[in-house]
């Protein structure tokens, strides 16, 4: 690999020049949301300054420009995840809405009393609660495949839980609390032996590793823009065309219809059937700009650089005697979740903040994971393309200092 252009990339993110108190910002809360490059910020201003109008509506010039930009972004998303068609790219608010869409549309049409939905023990609340609600509404049963103490899915148990009753497998691609990257190819292959639909929660995976939905052969893939250097409030649901076509609408209103009378409504085709109402136009354009930015760097290069960062951070963390890493999967993305013997994660968070370092302290919307590891919360440093080894040194030095202060 050629040298990763870290200095150039850092220049692209204006917020990295911010000071916290009088300390340079060390932003390590990327798994919660990540910062935006100038190119994304500019794309939004440019749209509002020169190209903004509603999409798919008017014959006037601005509406055509805005529609071109909006649909252009859909094409970029399609290429980024290698979908077969732009009809398979549905813009939603984020991963959470994408999963809720599947639960309410695919779920209600295909899942009935006695059927089973299979998830894992490392899911984010947003890949647990929609299924609990669906199960309550339909009488279906939620099954949970266990994890081991390294934070890896116990694959044999997962396979054992697949049955003739299973109608959907919904699994996180990369865990936000542990960093674990699940063996999604094997998961999908196992599900396909019984013709079970598979949804991957890609919220964490998408900024860190190349994703090819056709190579994976997943039925649905959900992700958010804001963890992919794009604005918040925008996300993507990928779905195989045949499945999406058979699904009933999720929300109804303008743009998702072809013909409306008071007696009958004919729905619009894909992807518009699932995009009722005026969408978040500028945020979609911002997502397109983020994809251009990342594609220029290359997702393979990003994955390799971040793996280097994680190795470096893990080695340093292991040298701290009272630090315990939570999540030590063999296949892991750029997340370092940890606890200290005598210091609560919230105190770690406040202490590090006073040094300009932003980490997350809490349950990471994965309370069952915390229960499994018998910790109330963890501190989590999560890395992005603009983080450097020097910043990891600042973090580790801060941790050593605060351990001393707490004695």
């Amino acid at each position: 690999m050629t040298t990763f252009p870290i200095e150039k990339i850092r220049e692209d993110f204006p917020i990295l020049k911010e000071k916290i108190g009088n300390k340079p910002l060390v932003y390590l809360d990327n798994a919660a949301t990540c910062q935006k490059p100038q190119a994304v910020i500019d794309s939004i201003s440019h749209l509002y300054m020169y190209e903004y109008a509603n999409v798919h509506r008017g014959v006037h010039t601005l509406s055509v420009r805005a529609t071109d930009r909006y649909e252009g972004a859909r094409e970029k998303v399609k290429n980024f995840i290698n979908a077969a068609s732009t009809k398979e790219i549905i813009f939603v608010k984020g991963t959470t809405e994408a999963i809720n869409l599947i639960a309410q549309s695919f779920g209600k049409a295909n899942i009935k009393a006695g059927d089973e939905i299979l998830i894992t023990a490392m899911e984010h609340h947003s890949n647990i609660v929609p299924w609990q609600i669906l199960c309550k509404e339909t009488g279906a049963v939620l099954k949970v495949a266990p994890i081991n103490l390294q934070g890896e899915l116990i694959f044999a148990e997962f396979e054992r839980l697949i049955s003739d009753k299973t109608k959907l497998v919904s699994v996180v691609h990369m865990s936000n609390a542990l960093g674990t990257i699940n063996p999604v190819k094997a998961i999908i292959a196992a599900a396909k032996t019984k013709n079970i639909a598979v949804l991957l929660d890609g919220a964490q995976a998408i900024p860190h590793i190349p994703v090819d939905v056709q190579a994976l052969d997943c039925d649905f893939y959900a992700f958010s823009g804001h963890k992919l250097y794009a604005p918040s409030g925008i996300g993507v649901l990928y779905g195989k065309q045949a499945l999406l076509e058979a699904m009933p609408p999720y929300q109804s209103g303008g743009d998702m219809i072809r013909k409306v009378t008071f007696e009958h409504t004919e729905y619009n085709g894909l992807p518009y059937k699932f995009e009722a109402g005026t969408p978040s136009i500028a945020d979609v354009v911002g997502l397109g700009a983020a994809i251009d930015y990342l594609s220029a760097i290359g997702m393979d290069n990003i994955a390799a650089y971040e793996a280097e960062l994680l190795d470096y951070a893990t080695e340093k963390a292991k040298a701290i005697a009272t630090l315990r890493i939570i999540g030590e999967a063999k296949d892991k993305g750029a997340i370092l979740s940890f606890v200290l013997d005598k210091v609560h994660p919230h105190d770690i968070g406040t202490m590090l903040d006073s040094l300009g370092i932003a980490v997350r302290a809490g349950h990471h919307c994965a309370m069952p994971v915390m229960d499994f590891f018998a910790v109330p919360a963890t501190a989590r440093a999560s890395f992005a393309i603009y983080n450097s080894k020097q910043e990891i040194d600042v973090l580790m030095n801060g941790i050593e200092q605060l351990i001393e202060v707490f004695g």
Partner: protein
Amino acid sequence: MFDDLRDLYQEVIFDHNRNPRNFRVMENPDREVEGFNPLCGDRLTLFLKIQNNAISDASFQGSGCAISTASVSLMTEIVKGKTKNEAEELFQQFHAMTTGKDDQIDLKAIGKLAVLAGVREYPARVKCATLAWHTLDAALKNKEKSISTE
């Protein structure tokens, strides 16, 4: 190195975090209430003995950050021997202190609790300090068996 945090993490707080006072399960308590902060996972159980309308003993169990541990530890010390009304009044004072309403604070009554005044500068940490007191309030009013900050 952590100079900016001296107002928040005073030595008394470190002391109570390392050696929490009244950290024990109480036999036959008159009140037992669980306090929970779902945002950070802090969880504590408060035990009270009430005699002649006054708190004759207070203890707690649970795990939390230094601020919440020190707060509940200090609280169990200060409320012992107080009547229910006096303890409620103290809760009001503590609440005013941690939310920055200085004009309503009786410094003499607050006493040692003043070490927790620093949380007012840290909105994300105010609930760590007040969890203990909301739990006490519920225990004194004999309302719920468990309370949550959210």
